[in-house]
């Protein structure tokens, strides 16, 4: 974990309202793992005040660059979007834990929605590079929200739209339900996205008796585990709450109290 000044190498829109930002990564900062995140101090200004967290969406070891995919949502991301290449960014990273790697025998099914795309994408790329057969399922409202992504070499990407304007017609979980799981070798779920989607993935995993990891999101202040602000409620654990920033963001879906 390090607090460093990075440079924006470039930004490009990858879907309506979604931007991919590439930034430089210092030599002396460790390589982030899929699921981990960074926080950005958007400006040296009291508004917006707090650092904004974003998951890593890729890492390029040779170029020593990383990227995030973010949705333009409020004050902070609007300012972020306006910054030209070459601008400095105050980064704190890598933060949090990461997805558990599947074993050789397992088939990783990666489900993403909305701002959950980044970490899933990074994980998918890493698994793909390692030659694993990976199924990436991305769900969104309509085709304008479908990101422009390079295909996986060893796996497949399935787009789902609620309105059926492209790809599978229906939610990503509806797609999962349409899969013939028996034909896959030891399927294992990983999900990141809106709470509703995560809950549905979890319920699907329960029903289908699959392991499932979800990357969670909560408002953060410190991002390093000190303030106890970013908790999620746990189920069946001695401890009632866990910190997303330090104990997560990735949790076994069965450990989360879904409400």
């Amino acid at each position, binding site marked *: *974990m*390090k*607090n460093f000044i990075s440079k924006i190498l470039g930004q490009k829109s990858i879907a309506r309202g979604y931007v991919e930002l590439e930034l430089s990564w210092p030599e002396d900062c460790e390589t982030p793992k899929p699921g981990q995140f960074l926080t950005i*101090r958007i400006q040296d200004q*009291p*508004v*917006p*005040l*707090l*650092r904004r967290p974003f998951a890593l969406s890729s890492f390029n070891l040779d170029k020593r660059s990383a990227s995030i995919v973010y949705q333009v949502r409020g004050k902070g991301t609007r300012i972020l979007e306006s910054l030209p290449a070459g601008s400095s960014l*105050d980064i*704190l990273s890598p933060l949090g834990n990461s997805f558990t790697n599947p074993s050789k025998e397992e088939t990783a099914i990666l489900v993403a929605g909305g701002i959950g795309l980044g970490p899933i994408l990074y994980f998918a790329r890493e698994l793909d590079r390692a030659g694993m057969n990976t199924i990436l399922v991305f769900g969104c409202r309509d085709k304008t929200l479908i990101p422009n992504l390079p295909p996986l070499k060893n796996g497949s990407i399935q787009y789902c739209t609620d309105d059926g304007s492209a790809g599978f017609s229906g939610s990503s979980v509806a797609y999962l339900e349409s899969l013939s799981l028996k034909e896959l070798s030891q399927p294992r779920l990983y999900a990141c996205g809106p709470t509703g989607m995560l809950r549905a993935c979890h319920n699907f995993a329960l029903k289908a008796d699959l392991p499932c990891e979800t990357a969670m999101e*909560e*408002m*953060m*202040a*410190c*991002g*390093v*585990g*000190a*303030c*106890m*602000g*970013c*908790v*999620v*409620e746990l189920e069946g654990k001695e*401890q*009632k*709450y866990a910190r997303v920033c*330090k104990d997560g963001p990735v949790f076994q879906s069965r450990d989360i109290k879904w409400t």
Partner: protein
Amino acid sequence: MDLSIKIRNKILPNPVGVASGTFGYGEEYAPLTDLSALGAIYTKAVTVEPRPGNPLPRLVETTAGMINSIGLANVGTKRFLSEKIPFLNTLSCPVILNVAGSLEEDYAEVIRRVDDQEAIWGYEVNISCPNVKKGGLAFGTDPHQVERLTSSLRQLTEKPLIMKLTPNVTDITAIAKAAEQGGADALACINTVMGMSVDIHKKKPSIPAVTGGLSGPAIKPVGIAAVYRVSKAVSIPVIGLGGIMNGDDAVEYLLSGASAIQIGTANFVDPDTSSKVLAGIKAYMEGSGFSKISDFHGYF
């Protein structure tokens, strides 16, 4: 330049500490700032029993501030001793234990159980947390209770005893005098300001506890007014906090009567704020020909 401040029989090496609840028990920030350079670490509140804390979400950002509703989530005295003390023992900077409770006896019990720990330099008694229903707040708003609590804790320890005051009272100087009367060695002002925010899309309060504690640059004027008024009312040192983001903010507090300051919310924004604030204070002292912290006082 002498940056030290004496409180009771002990010395803080410099005036810049990090505020309770914003710095955990130090460990998380070790990779991000030089802990040994801190004037003091004020720990997250410790209560007798572990507390899970309040329901989520516990945070919301407001204009130039944030509201928290952590609810004194902490591991309790027993696990504090076994899990946190070993790391705190490795630190060279003063560690001040922030103590909280619901009843007078709760505060006393924490102090009794930890007082022999070398790692603990002194206590900051949180009688001002807006985030626990029964407890903290009641003490902090009633001068009689504050005096009683202070004098009963005073009998338990020879270590410095700092009472931390809430700004959410009609007359903070009355509370300050009561704490001084009860035997406090110093006062810390301010804890968070009672605040609330509404999620207009969900049509409900942003945090389930409805009201929470406002901190950050927005409340700096409230903290400075409190420190100024309290330092005129008592003769023990006052430790100022609330919205300090940089050296100039700290200087405002010191000129207003503070003998030391704490960095709270700013740690979230820049984990190394404390070292920058200390450098800012030093530069200001140099420019003003100040050689010690008390040179800040008496201008108004």
